[in-house]
């Protein structure tokens, strides 16, 4: 990909048409990949649910009817025969109510909003931090590059999960008690509670997941920056910034997109895990992770309370994996089947 473009640039052909061809080619390969298309369709459906959750859900996710707790619809009782001895039947809720009498269907639907926003913001943050870091490190090179990459090495050795647990404890308890308006901590805490606890999750993910992208970007920069088209740009007097963003960046973006797409299921699982252990979103925000944790406590009596959100989580990750695999094969056929 990079070499093809390099030769075109060096003989000064109009580059715009070639560049669109690369993307159109990729798109055509993607559409021919059945698994990727299935993944894409599922994601479109999820996106629809994400936007129109208020219409798809039958009631707000936090409406509680205590006397309806653990009631199940008939089809679920048929599916889990052992519950027939004690479960109360209802037809009010399509998937039954949870242990606090909240509609499970509505909560699963609103859970899409949590997981998909992580799927959008997680890669974006990792991309912003990691790619900038990798670009600078690879482009400057020398001593600076050495130091910057050693920092990445140390961060890699740090157990990410533990770092994020301490960080979440740090954010939650140092910012939550602050009442003075106008301070940064107060503002952050305000945004965090307004988003149901999502802000700190985003910060946590951003701070712990940029390293892979930084390494990848740096490697790509190193492989591209000695190419003829960079030399050509330099010889006609382009500045560093222009070379970095106009010449190098477009040539290395493909693998980075693929890397981040394939990382999305990881971010989704990360949020679910944090909510699962109680350091993620604030209840009653309906994260699938929290619902799995709540359901797991009653797994012997009401297994559907944990299985349905778990299924939603698995399907979402499934779709992203399919699409990511397809995008990797489409954008760079040489990488097919690796990883």
């Amino acid at each position, binding site marked *: 990909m990079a070499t093809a473009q390099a030769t075109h640039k060096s003989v000064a052909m109009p580059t715009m048409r070639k560049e669109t061809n690369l993307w159109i080619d990729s798109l055509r390969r993607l559409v021919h990949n059945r698994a990727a298309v299935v993944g894409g369709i599922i994601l479109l459906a999820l996106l629809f649910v994400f936007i129109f959750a208020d219409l798809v859900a039958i009631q707000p996710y936090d409406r509680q009817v205590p006397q309806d707790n653990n009631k199940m619809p008939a089809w679920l009782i048929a599916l889990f025969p052992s519950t027939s001895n004690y479960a109360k039947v209802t037809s009010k809720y399509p998937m039954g109510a949870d242990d606090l009498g909240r509609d499970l269907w509505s909560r699963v639907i609103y859970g899409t909003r949590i997981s998909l926003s992580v799927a959008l913001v997680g890669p974006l943050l990792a991309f912003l931090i990691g790619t900038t870091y990798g670009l600078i490190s690879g482009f400057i090179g020398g001593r600076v590059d050495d130091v910057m990459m050693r920092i990445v090495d140390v961060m890699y050795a740090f*157990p990410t999960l*533990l770092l994020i*647990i301490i960080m979440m404890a740090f954010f939650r308890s140092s910012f939550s008690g602050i009442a003075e308006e106008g301070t940064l901590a107060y503002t952050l805490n305000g945004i965090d509670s307004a988003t149901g606890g999502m802000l700190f999750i985003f910060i946590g993910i951003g701070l712990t997941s940029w390293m892979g992208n930084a390494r990848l970007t740096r490697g790509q920069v190193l492989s591209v920056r000695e190419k003829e088209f960079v030399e050509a740009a330099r010889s006609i007097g382009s500045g560093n910034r222009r070379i970095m963003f106009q010449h190098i960046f477009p040539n290395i973006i493909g693998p980075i997109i693929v890397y981040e797409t394939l990382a999305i299921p990881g971010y989704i*699982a990360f949020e679910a895990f944090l909510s699962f252990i109680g350091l993620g979103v604030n209840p009653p925000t309906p994260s699938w992770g929290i619902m*799995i944790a709540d*359901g797991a406590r009653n797994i012997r009596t009401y297994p559907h309370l944990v299985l349905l959100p*778990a299924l939603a989580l698995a399907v979402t990750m499934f779709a992203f994996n399919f699409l990511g695999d397809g995008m990797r094969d489409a954008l760079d056929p040489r990488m097919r089947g690796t990883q």
Partner: protein
Amino acid sequence: MGRFIVRRLLWMFLVLFVVSLITFLLMHGVPGGPFDSEKALPAEIKKNLEAKYHLNEPLWRQYLFYLYDVTVPRVTTEKPSTSLLDSYLIEAKLGNVYFRWMNFGPSYASKTRTVNDIFRDNLPISFQLGILAVIFALAIGVPLGVLAALRQNTWVDYLTMGVAIFGVSVPAIVLAPILVALFAVELRWLPATGWGAKPPFLLGFIPANLAPDFFRYALLPAIALGMAGSAVFARLTRASLLQVIREDFIRTARAKGLAERTVIVRHALRNALIPVTTIIGPYFAAVVTGTFVIELIFGIPGLGRYFVTSVTNRDYPVIMGTILLYAFVLVIANVVVDIVYAFLDPRIRVQ
């Protein structure tokens, strides 16, 4: 080679030092202390408690105390008294000299246990679970990957890789409840929670009686933990084997008239498994952190539960001890993989 290993080990100590420093600063940056409870303690008692654990000293002194306790061995000639503040992970008697090393401190949250006790009793259980999961992942993943590569573009290949994507997509917090609901709650074949081995352990980590009961408890958690890994191994083995069987030396081996079996096992597989060994290091890291989720769901008394509880309790020595231990395991895994890799691939040894 010797210099390479020494360099890696020095790097490891540097990493552990940085990790300990960051953790120390972060955990003391979290507001609140270990002795803040719902019902406030009388001021004098709290002051005495803090003095006992050196919490009234400046931070840099506390950190140096900690480093000193963990790294500097104590050698005495008279029999040392043991207390919660004075318990060492390694205690040995050499002639008439008592040698003691690595004091990770007491647990503030418990009145009777030290961090070393947690390492002795709970760590082996996590370790058993992790080992079983790695064995499961390798035993399922590598053969499936080989099969898929040898039958490339047939239904065997498509089915295996489809299952592998499924395995990658289903995180432990999803797979574990599904397994419990199916095999423990509905079918009642296996227990839903618990662990089939208790301390003391042989050699520090092997269960004393490897009865079938141990595996009855271990089967579901090990599968839940190892599934994602088996999928990763299957995909990697397939990709790497596909690359190798197109190499010239495989054609040479076939041209010599070697049996297909010999060509695959002796020539292709040996080379194809090199990339697989390199990801065992990072994979081990994933298993190590994954044990933590699995232990919560299956109620296994391993090290996992101490992470969240120690952070919420501000139990400083337990936070430091567990994080340093996990970082140590991760770094050692990477060093071992680097060394194994250098042995497997002569081209790297030269560099």
